[in-house]
């Protein structure tokens, strides 16, 4: 966790100093040392099995250079500063794909080069966040819900009220993620009865107002992103927070958080997909497609999920997944699935309005 926040702060500093320094020139990308072509992959920290990288390098006779980020906004900021030609493949979350396409950061994917596309679970072949998977190919998916420490909070309602109702948690410290604000505003909307995927201005404003009130509660411990917040719940600094299913499943598996409980609130929650997309000025578009098709392979897809401990969008990979990935934590049953929604993409003026509202909630 320390590592993650440290990295985040260092990368924020890096982005800021880049904005100061690179008005005209951008950092040099990793170039081919010899005649071996280089594929530059820009992805989340610890999100690909190093063994898969080696395997891909052997198959493509190329070199794969991996660079990491910790948030969608950080990734997009770097793409805008010259990253669209520096990296070939990026791994954005579902709700920023159309925004990135609209801004010219990514290009459409040539499906004719993806022989393994039909391996995908049907739900992921034509998702609402990117119809027809025009710009993005699913990589891993999961849910966003709540985690709590049952030693402190006894039998809380399976509801967003655990965050927003002072009567449910009057004393114990909790946090909200900082991020781009989509999960936070959506959770507040769900609690207020507007549904998780709220899109109307007055609903957002009401949600922002609720967050502003929540911030004033004495046991509100600040804005901390999901993954570091879970570490703080584990160490006892916090009693509850928004969390990703994979993170909780992971610490259940390694024994570092056996007692912590995870649930998807009854008012609804987020099903998210991290996807592979090709940057608009990629130097190796053909290699990028080869990489995407490589990940879509059943065996490779299973190896990826078994390493990451997230659910696979790859139907053909399912028989090779570790049994734990088929438990309700990772593969929610239909009753829970019905409560989960993809966050709608936000573009243009609507995104600007959302950002203004989220900024006002944080101030």
């Amino acid at each position, binding site marked *: 966790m*320390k590592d993650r*926040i*440290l990295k985040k*702060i*260092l990368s*924020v*500093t890096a*982005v*800021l100093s880049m*904005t*100061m*320094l690179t*008005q005209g020139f951008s950092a040099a990308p990793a170039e081919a040392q010899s005649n071996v072509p280089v594929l530059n992959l820009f992805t989340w920290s610890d999100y690909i099995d190093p063994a898969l990288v080696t395997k891909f390098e052997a198959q493509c006779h190329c070199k794969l250079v991996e660079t990491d980020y910790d*948030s969608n*906004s*950080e990734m*997009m*900021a770097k793409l*805008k500063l010259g990253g669209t030609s520096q990296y070939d493949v990026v791994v954005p979350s579902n709700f920023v794909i159309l*925004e990135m396409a*609209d*801004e010219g950061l990514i290009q459409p994917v040539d499906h004719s080069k993806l022989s393994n596309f039909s391996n995908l679970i049907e739900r992921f072949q034509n998702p609402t966040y990117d119809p027809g998977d025009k710009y993005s190919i699913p990589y891993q998916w999961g849910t966003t819900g709540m985690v709590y420490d049952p030693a*402190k909070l006894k039998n809380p309602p399976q509801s967003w009220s655990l965050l927003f109702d002072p009567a449910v948690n009057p*004393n*114990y*410290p909790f*946090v909200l993620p*900082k*991020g*781009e*604000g989509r999960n936070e505003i959506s959770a507040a909307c769900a609690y207020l009865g507007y549904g998780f995927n709220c899109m109307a201005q007055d609903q957002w*404003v009401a949600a922002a107002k609720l967050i502003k009130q929540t*911030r004033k509660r*004495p*046991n*509100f*411990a*600040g*804005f*901390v992103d999901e993954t570091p917040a879970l570490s703080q719940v584990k*160490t*006892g*600094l916090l*009693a509850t927070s928004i969390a990703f299913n994979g993170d909780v499943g992971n610490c259940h598996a390694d024994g570092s958080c056996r007692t912590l409980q995870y649930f998807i609130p009854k008012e609804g929650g987020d099903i998210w997909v991290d996807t592979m997309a090709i940057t608009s000025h990629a130097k190796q578009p053909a290699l990028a497609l080869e990489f995407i098709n490589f990940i879509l392979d059943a065996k490779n897809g299973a190896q990826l999920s078994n390493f990451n401990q997230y659910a696979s969008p790859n139907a053909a990979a399912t028989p090779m997944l570790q049994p734990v990935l088929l438990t309700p934590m990772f593969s929610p049953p239909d009753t829970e699935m019905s409560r989960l929604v993809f966050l709608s993409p936000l*573009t*243009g*003026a609507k*995104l*600007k*309005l959302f*950002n*203004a*509202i*989220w*900024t*006002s909630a*944080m*101030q």
Partner: protein
Amino acid sequence: MSPARTQAEVEGRRQRARLWTTSGPGLVWIMLFLLIPSAGLLAIAFFSADDYGNPVLPLSTQPFQQVAGFSLLGWDAGNIAIFLRSLQQAGIATLAAIVIAYPLVFFILSRPPAVRPLLLLFVILPSWTNQVVRTYAWLELLGPNAPLSWLAHSLHLLPPELGLAPGSLAVTSGLAYNYLPYMIVPLYASAEKLDWALVEAGRDLYAAGIKLFWHTVFPQTLPGLLSGVIFVAIPAFGDYVVPALLGGDKAMMIGSLISAQFIETPDWPYGAALTLIMLAFTGLGLVAFRIFSRKLGGTGETAI
């Protein structure tokens, strides 16, 4: 060479040449890597923002209206609160640094001359470590499972479920701790040159305690103190790491507000305008301090 040229003119020219060769590289460095990029960033403050926060033409005063608190949602006092909070945190942290620095400086001066550089080194040494790492150490010290929080619990200053961090007291402590060396070093430089005869004279005139300090020690250490105030207050005002870690950003400060405009909720012109306003206030603060120190009869010996 004109025969009319006097010895003094030649000498003057030589001095100018020497000045340029010694300070020239530094000036070029500052121009290339500080002034030009900063000017580039600040120029963005006068552009409009497109829907994705990128600077576009036409030129606009919109970013400055946003700084003043106007947004798509109307006017909001949020920015003013952030600004005042940053000023307040920086002010309290600076005061705390002064209160800690004075006794410490005179303690070091009271040791044998051979030991003093070593003690001074101990003061400076921690600042060679990354600020994020040191701030994390404070998060451990002030967390709910640490003795300081237990003390606060038993004194009923804090509910038993909570820790001292994150919170505004933690931010103040973190800022004072982080910038304390920058107060101690200039103050030490002043105090080292202290004319103790004046203190003795004060004693002979039956002054003691605070009165003695105020009339003999304080005026003599004022140049160092003023440099220290500037070195502490300015970076504390714009600090980003301490409010994020020790405050959890639950009470936003100006550094976090600026960084959000470049990362989480991109709006570059607004971020640039905020930066410009922050720099302007820093500049005004410097000018005010200079005037203030002259008025107080300072010798202009402050480090800036």
